[in-house]
């Protein structure tokens, strides 16, 4: 972390988001280089991602087009019958602005077919199925020479606000180290349409769903707290002393703990002397010689 003597030490207050501001030019350069390098070294030449009409996938689409060329990026809009019309027009807008191909692949038939005959399906269970259905389509469309991009941001990853092997699944995630508010800032810089940046974030898994409504707090509240808690390793007692809400701290810390399984590879039972995931530790970018 940089301590700028002219700006003074980092301030810690629940409503002060200044420490979260990023150098957008630098971040864009880093993420484009990441996508280009990490894609090409695998031998893949295309990138595939789901375009929801939201800000996260819009930023990833922009970065992907810049990294590999717009003709090498495929966006997939995968609506369910309850998906808002606004999501479709926003997805089309994003594809048009960044010049990438957008295909619409509805998932209503397979989701409804699967759940047909079941009396009452919980909407979270339904949402998880939809997220995995979408990802399975993205992976299929990436065959044989493409990689699937993830669009989960740092706030979602830390809070576990995502479906394991659903929206969380990907080969590369360029935005997983940016909080939602930082991603919004980057979105403005890369030219995401204003309407997409400003609308309330939503997984759009059921009518009227919003992220902040479901989580019970705002991204601004979560991000500033997560920043001090995770990035700066500030202890909860010191956060409380600085005016952060004790209940919010507890809620967010518990979400981080409870959802950690989504951030790691599956556990493998160790019985031998050398075990995948435990002490057979090779880098993913292990290159051919």
């Amino acid at each position, binding site marked *: 972390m940089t301590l700028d003597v002219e700006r003074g030490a980092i301030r810690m207050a629940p409503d002060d988001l200044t420490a979260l*501001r*990023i150098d957008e030019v630098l971040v864009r350069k880093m993420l484009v280089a990441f996508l280009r390098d990490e894609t090409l070294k695998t031998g893949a030449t295309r990138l595939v991602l789901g375009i929801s009409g939201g800000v996260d996938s819009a930023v990833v689409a922009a970065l992907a087009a810049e990294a590999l060329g717009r003709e090498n990026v495929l966006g997939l809009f995968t609506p369910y019958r309850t998906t808002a019309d606004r999501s479709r027009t926003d997805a089309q807008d994003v594809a048009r602005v960044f010049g990438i191909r957008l295909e619409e692949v509805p998932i209503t038939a397979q989701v409804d077919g699967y759940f047909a005959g079941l009396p009452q399906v919980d909407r979270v269970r339904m949402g998880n199925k939809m997220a995995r259905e979408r990802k399975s389509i993205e992976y299929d469309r990436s065959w044989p020479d493409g990689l699937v991009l993830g669009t989960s941001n740092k706030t979602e990853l830390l809070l576990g606000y995502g479906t394991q092997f659903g929206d969380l699944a990907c080969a590369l995630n360029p935005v997983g180290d940016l909080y939602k508010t930082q991603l919004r800032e980057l979105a403005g810089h890369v030219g995401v349409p204003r309407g997409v940046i400003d609308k309330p974030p939503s997984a759009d898994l059921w009518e009227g769903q919003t992220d902040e409504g479901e989580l019970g707090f705002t991204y601004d509240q979560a991000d500033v707290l997560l920043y001090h808690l995770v990035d700066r390793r500030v202890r909860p007692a010191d956060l409380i002393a600085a005016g952060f809400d004790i209940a919010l701290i507890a809620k967010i810390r518990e979400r981080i703990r409870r959802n950690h399984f989504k951030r790691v590879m599956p556990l493998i039972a160790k019985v031998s002397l050398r075990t995948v995931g435990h002490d057979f530790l090779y880098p993913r970018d292990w290159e051919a010689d």
Partner: protein
Amino acid sequence: MKIAIAQCAPALGAMRRNLEMHREWIAKARATGAKLVVFPELSLTGYYLKDLAADVACAADDARLAPIAEASRDIDISAGFVERSPDAKLHIAQGYWSGGALRHVHRKVYLPTYGIFDDGRYFGPGDRFATFDSAVGVAGVAICEDLWHLSVPYVYAALGASVIFAPAASPGRGVAEGGDLGTAASCRMMDRFYAQYLTVYVVFVNRVGHEDGIGFWGGSEVIGPDGTVCARAKEWEEELLVADLDPELVARERARNPLLRDERPDLVFRVLAERMGVRVTE
């Protein structure tokens, strides 16, 4: 005295490919008229090796390094590799080849094992700091984390070095608004501070490219003994950086600013020895 810096992107675990890459950069460096070309940390193997470290390790006299020795007949070469010591310990090493032979090896002493680093899990530490004669004067090598320990450049200066080679695999991080890249700001502060206050040249050689999602930021630079930037490479991109080192500037700067002449390493030694309960006789 011209020096070339190879700000390259080694392939992880692919030593044959990296040897070929070195030959290309050495040829380019030779064409500039440089007397020496310096490669980054672990330039022949890549950095985040994990268990690959044992697979790519070789003895300092291994035949796999012969092409580097061969290429050093008409230009000196400093390059990084995984050294397997005679007693089978693995080290992060930086070799110095000249006139067709390996002349010096520095083993990284400070192995960062925290945050994004895990050197201490896979490698053993070096146990010494020794200067040697390089094409551009008496030199000491500080591999990446070595340079962050201020005793290291201090010891080299006390031993008579006029240039410190700092090969690195420095991951870029810290993107707060209104500042430089966090790592770049820290490295530049160190390079300049050491150069100016020890009146030495600091040759910082960082790599570029990505390994497992981590990007190395480049920004290699040569800082003069007066604290000025003699040359600086671009960030994030490959570049062969060429700089001119002037031994006379070291002499002039030390005449003007005789900090090193007046330095008391004997006093430092005595104070530390007393603190550690070691008896020192005059």
